[in-house]
């Protein structure tokens, strides 16, 4: 028999905050994954909402290619406010 697949767990700790990845677990289906996630990751009211996603459904970037992959943003200092030289007197901008 096949082993239970792996699920990634994301928890929103309170409304107003994003769901954050907090770990993974094994479960036979999505319902069980949600219930196991509740028992494993929110035993002390650490969450108000949980997402579970089959790990196999996640496509991740490859850190070996980080150089090329993130290169387009590297030389664009003009995207940052500090790039612009403004007079001292201009206090809040």
């Amino acid at each position, binding site marked *: *028999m*096949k*082993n*239970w697949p*792996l699920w990634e767990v994301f928890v929103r700790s309170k409304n107003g905050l994003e769901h954050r990845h*907090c*770990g*993974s*677990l*094994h479960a*036979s*289906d999505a319902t*069980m994954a949600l219930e196991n996630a509740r*028992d*494993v*990751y929110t*035993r*002390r009211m650490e969450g108000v909402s949980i997402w579970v996603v089959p790990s196999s459904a996640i496509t*991740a970037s*490859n*850190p*070996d290619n980080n150089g090329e992959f993130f290169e387009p943003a590297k030389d664009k200092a003009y995207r940052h406010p500090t790039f612009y030289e403004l007079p001292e007197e201009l206090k809040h901008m």
Partner: protein
Amino acid sequence: MEANIAELEAEFERKIANDEKIEPKDWMPEKYRKTHIRQISQHAHSEIVGMLPEGNWITRAPSLRRKVALLAKVQDEAGHGLYLYSACETLGISREELYDQLHSGEAKYSSIFNYPTVTWADMGAIGWLVDGAAIINQVPLTATSYGPYARAMVRVCKEESFHQRQGFEIMLTLCNGTPEQKAMAQDALNRWWWPSMMMLGPTDAESVHTEQSMKWKLKRKTNDELRQQFVDQTVPQADLLGLTIPDPDLKWNEDRKSYDYGDMDWEEFWQVVKGHGPCNKVRMDARRNAWDKGKWVRDAAMAYAEKQDKLETA
């Protein structure tokens, strides 16, 4: 290609030196991966096997308050085992392989769980001493270099402090009770003291993994440093309980501002590690039994999930 490996290694060393984390998909030396699989899985197995000696007393806890607390502690240990297995799996080993290593005896778990829990006072002594020693071991791991392990340890450490406090409260209640109850607490301390001391690992001179592990920040303090911290922290707590630590050589050293302590029986330690402790067989039988007898449940759940999938797609 070789130049490439040297470059990758240099980048890896640079990250470790700068206290940057290593994440699952980052390049890492094979030895780093293997050492982490060994240590994280050993840690996970210890949490899982660690449920057994305490599980022994859930049905016989002396009050409902004690029962719910012990049950919650054992549930936490299951949780800690699961956080750690999940961190370990990011290194490219499956849960089934990890269980197989535990059940075949290939992987180790903390030797402390091979001692029996013969009285209720053992629940107090375990929380106080065993969890106390575990916290000392685990706090530095929250800053270890492997990201998923460090994150799992942050969660574990947050939850451990309740474990130690509930244990100490049990000890305190017994010590404030009848002479028989206090004697029970002393007896538990007598039996758990040395195994707890040895839980912090072989002496630095004997520890084969320390040097490499320090370099990778998998260890931040040596076993002897951790042990000293444990002694210095625990002696005043024993005084507070009015109990005597079973070590005739234990005394305050004014020069070191620390307690000196006696020699440990390492012969016994290695015997227990090698499988000749009082409960090694019972613990392993319980684990294998749970795994084998649970197989039909795992299979049925999977069969149900597959059937539901087919119905949805049909």
